[in-house]
Each structure stands twice: as C-alpha cells, then as structure tokens.
C-alpha cells in the first residue's frame, strides 16, 4: 500500500477546508488526456461533496511524452503567484489541445494577470524548482502514472470514474468519523 510521503502543506494548491474529513491529492499532468477526463469528474465530485472534501493538486509532468506539460505547469504556478492558480489549472485542462506559448498567454490575459510578470516568470522558468519538488514527492510516494490519487494519504489504485471515486471518498470519510 503506497502512502503519501509529503503530507499536505499550506503551500500546496488547495480547494476546501483544511479540516475536511477527506483529503484527495492528485498528481497530474496538464497534457495528459486521462487527467483531462479526471478534471471533469473531479469538478462534479467537488460540487457534490462541498466542505466534506479537501482537494490538492500537485504537478507530475511527464515531459518526454508530453512536450507542453512542463510549460503548462510553469504557467499554472506563474498564475498562482498572482492568485489565479485554479483559473489557469481549469483553462489548461479544458484546452489540452491548445497549450502553445501564445495560447497560454491568452489564458493569462483573460484572467487579467500582469502579463509582463507572467512572461518573465515563464521565460526564466522561475517556478521549476517547485514543480520538480512536487514531481519527486510523487515518485517517492509511489506515483506510477498520471493521474495518481491519494485519499487520506493512501494511494487509490481503483478507477477514478465518478461512482468509484465517490464511494472511496465516502468510505474514507466514514472510516475517519468518530
């Protein structure tokens, strides 16, 4: 049973209350088609579970097979320092076939980011260390492809379709209930 080796920290990208009964960590790649499918499932789950769930996204770009994955991850971080991580995260997953530099710049523009700063961050790959840190934390936790999920710190090896993932999250919530 693989366990998350780096616990969820404040500097992670989080949606939901930090005291939620269930924490779902995703290691994902913005150019991975399976992560793209999972994105829509996760949106439904987040809506359904509300404050019961804390969702965390960590980067796991497979750069040799996905030539845009690293730039996309950098873009999410560059948007993140301007308070727009999740907007960029959603835009990237919803436009996986449009991840060229200029297209990414368009998304940044649509969120009213400081484009000068954004472009400089991208050019200097300023947030690469953080992405590598996420990646290695995934490797050491037994991430074996994308997406890989951890529910309350334990790798979820089942399917991530809506009913299976929802049941696994509910079971984890029940197991934790006093």
């Amino acid at each position, binding site marked *: 049973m693989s366990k998350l080796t780096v616990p969820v920290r404040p500097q992670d990208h989080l949606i939901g209350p930090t005291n939620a009964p269930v924490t779902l960590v995703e290691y994902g790649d913005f150019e991975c088609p399976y992560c793209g499918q999972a994105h829509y499932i996760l949106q439904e789950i987040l809506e359904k579970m509300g404050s019961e769930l804390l969702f965390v996204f960590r980067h796991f770009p497979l750069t*040799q097979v996905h030539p845009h994955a690293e730039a996309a991850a950098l873009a999410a971080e560059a948007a993140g320092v301007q308070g727009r991580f999740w907007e960029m995260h959603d835009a990237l997953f919803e436009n996986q076939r449009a991840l060229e530099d200029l297209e990414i710049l368009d998304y940044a523009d649509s969120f009213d980011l400081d484009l000068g700063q954004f472009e400089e961050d991208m050019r200097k790959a300023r947030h690469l260390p953080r992405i590598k840190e996420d990646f290695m934390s995934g490797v050491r936790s*037994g991430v074996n492809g994308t997406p890989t999920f951890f529910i309350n710190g334990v790798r979820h090896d089942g399917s991530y379709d809506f009913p299976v993932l929802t049941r696994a999250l509910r079971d984890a919530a029940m197991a934790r209930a006093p």
Partner: protein
Amino acid sequence: MTTAIQKESSLPRETRPALVGSVLQPGTLAPDFTLQTTPDQTVSLRDFLGRPVVLVFYPADWSPVCGDQLSLYNEVLTEFKKHKAEVLGISVDGIWCHLAFEKDRKLRFPLLSDFEPKGDVARKYGVFRQSSGVAERALFVIDSEGTIRWSTVSPIGVNPGADGILTALEELSVRKQAGP
C-alpha cells in the same frame, strides 16, 4: 509503497505456479546475458560491471501499463543516474517493435529483446510467465559487482512505480560509502 521495503518477492502465493522456477532473490549473482538492442548491436550484462544496473522486465511494448511504467523511468532517469545506475528494459518483443516503441515514447535507455530463444533471460531470472509467454513485471537492482540486491514482482496489471528502485539504489550507495 510496500514493495520498497520488501526484500522478498511480493508476488502473491496463488500466482506462483504460473512462474517457471522461482524469482532470483537478493544475494544471488545476476546471471549474465547478451541480447540484441538494435538490429546490429547487442548488450551484455557484464558490460556494466562497476555500475549498478536496474533490470526492468515487462510483459510487452505498447500495452498501456508498460508505457506508463517505462515513461515514468524515462522521467526519473536523472535520479537513477545520480547513483550512476543504468536502466535496461527487457521484454520478449522483437527488435523492430522495440525500436518503434522507443521512438514513440522517446525513451532514453535501451530496450533489450529476449526474443530467441523466447524468454530465455526471463526464465533465468525466474520471471517468465509460461501461461501467457511473456515476462512478469519484475524489477531487479544489481550492484556494481553483479549481485542482485533487490527484486520485486508486481501483479500483472499494476505499475510498480519508481520508489522501490530509488530506495534500493540509495541503500547501495550507503553500503558503498560504509565500505565492505
């Protein structure tokens, strides 16, 4: 992941009869072999004496789990290289199939063809699956003197990840620093 801390094979007992012989265990001298890696090149295990070797047996090119597993090792290669380790992929696929697969996945380590006699090397390591005629999904970490230091066999549909390999390589590095 659990395989990282298991020195013994993690193969569930009920699947053992499918294997020919038993999986070579830590402490065993790794059997040497020479296999083709391109139409005009062969690779021998003894070529790598002096460096750790990660042997990655997998059932087949192109099956989705293998692709993921090898793509992952491709990404983690720089971490393996920190331990000066070489990664060798081995399956029963032919050399042309390997070449197409390597190109498609942009793999930066060689794939060896255990094609003739089919599965001969997998048999020597105790990881040939007779019923389906392919290798198990098995990992061996071999030290710089050619001794197996860690091995694991994953259930056929499960990608074992890279953490077990990294832990084994780290232990080798620590052992080396500590001296004999």
